């Protein structure tokens, strides 16, 4: 799967309160959450983001709360993937579980500028900055997470397992 879009750049330690402030968590409706995506980091973000665009950030992206509303809001806002130096642990797992592609690529995260046109090969983790022509390799995804992706998310993965056990 090839993901391609213009990039939005954020700094380090972008926390889940910046991604989706708790004041909007009295709902879990993805479309509602998308309206406030990244609002406390950049109030105009929900207005300006377009489908397919890519977030590029520094270290520890998604630190703070375990709220799955954070990757849900980003996905529902139309962001195709996130490239960061590192991700916070719970956010990392959540993003995979809900099917939001994320890539750890410190050099790419450092060098890509806001507004660059970037393409990512989700299978190989190869990131191409079409604006500068430079390519990068993202850190490989652990095998079991690849299996989760192959099943189409954690719930499908578990459902497959449960059904197998029932028919045994």
């Amino acid at each position: 799967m090839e993901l391609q879009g213009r990039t939005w750049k954020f700094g380090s330690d972008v926390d889940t309160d910046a991604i989706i402030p708790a004041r909007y968590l009295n709902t879990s409706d993805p479309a509602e959450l998308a309206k406030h995506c990244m609002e406390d980091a950049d109030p105009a973000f929900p207005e300006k983001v377009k489908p397919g665009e890519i977030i590029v950030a520094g270290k520890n992206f998604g630190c703070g709360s375990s709220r799955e509303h954070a990757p849900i809001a980003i996905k529902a806002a139309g962001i195709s993937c996130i490239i960061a130096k590192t991700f916070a642990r719970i956010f990392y797992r959540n993003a995979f579980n809900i099917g939001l592609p994320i890539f750890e690529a410190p050099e790419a995260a450092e060098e890509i500028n806001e507004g660059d046109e970037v393409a990512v090969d989700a299978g190989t983790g190869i990131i191409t900055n079409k604006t500068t022509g430079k390519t990068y390799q993202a850190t490989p995804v652990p095998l079991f997470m690849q299996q989760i992706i192959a099943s189409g998310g954690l719930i499908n993965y578990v459902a497959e397992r449960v059904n197998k056990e029932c028919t045994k």
Partner: protein
Amino acid sequence: MPMTITEKILANHAGKEHVVPGELINARVDFVLANDITAPVAIREFEKIGVADVFDRERVTLVPDHFTPNKDIKSAEQALLVKNFSRQYGLTNYFEIGRMGIEHCLLPEQGLVGPGDLVIGADSHTCTYGGLGAFSTGVGSTDLAAAMALGETWLKVPESIKFEFTGELQPWVSGKDLILYTIGDIGVDGALYRSMEFTGPAIENLSIESRLTMCNMAIEAGAKNGIVAPDAITRAYVEGRCKRPYQFYQSDPDASYVKVYQYDVSKIEPQVAIPHLPENSRPVGAAGNVEIDQVVIGSCTNGRMEDLRVAAKLLQGKKVHKNVRMVIFPGTQEIYLQALREGLIEIFVMAGGAVSTPTCGPCLGGHMGILAKGERAVATTNRNFVGRMGHPESEVYLANPAVAAASAILGRIAAPGEVE
């Protein structure tokens, strides 16, 4: 093969003799939890799996603590979903308002989690129970839904970092200061994906409350879990309280750590973490002259008896500064009642403070004490991110209950010694 306490608990729950850092395991969980924000998403995902029941109705609990007592209609609907699910699946533990508490104060108090347990919760501060010698960690709602169905979860065995604390605590210094100091030293991603093991003579003398506070904030350094080896202090707390058998694990003396930090606590003063990251900690005296509008004492970090007693000690016979509103949130109904019995509630009210029923309330900018643009709060909570307690241009300063109480009295960030 020598192992750390975290590795031993994980090995045991994966049915293995040994585990090593980096290894992926499928582990049995002893207890799982979610709250009124994360449970609705977990319930939705759980129902997609197509199982008839949760893995064990005594070991799943959904605590309505974030936007409760319901702050608006949407919150009420989320809480109702939690209640209906709990009924429908016959969950043994459901905590209605009036019997409820903040999840991470409530579960240890009610003996639902104990030493040696493996607990996952759809709340990042699930790591709190490491204070009892459990492995506990926060996950998202989908991970939780899978665990609710299977009673198992996938985990990567974390590398461990050892933090050794020696020396005598200075007056008014508690677990909160040790953890703020530590995060200030290593940074908000200083323990990313790793286990933080707190050891040393100063930890051995630390109360259960302070240990829970320290492990509560392990996530604030990016850690997977925080943990303190259980001992006689732990035993005194869990005996007669824990509803399930528990097990004490200790790290082997020759267990391996990726890093070891050593701190002399006698050099650590009461800390304040200035906006907007918990790593911005410094001695309270170095915070400068910061006038404040609000003081919040409570939360899953510092809403326990020890915390309320310390605050009351300073507030007794004093008044909250005329420019400040002080709100106090006991962690659970039992803590509330005990504080009432000890006369602490009267001290808070006489001082001009507002005492609330247990709730997360202002800690996450939910309700019951939201900050306006430009307002500043001193809070005993665990996060001072942008917009955490209200307007994106408000500010939160993190501190222990003694600093919070002193600041409430003086109307600015103050050291406890200034009002003693």
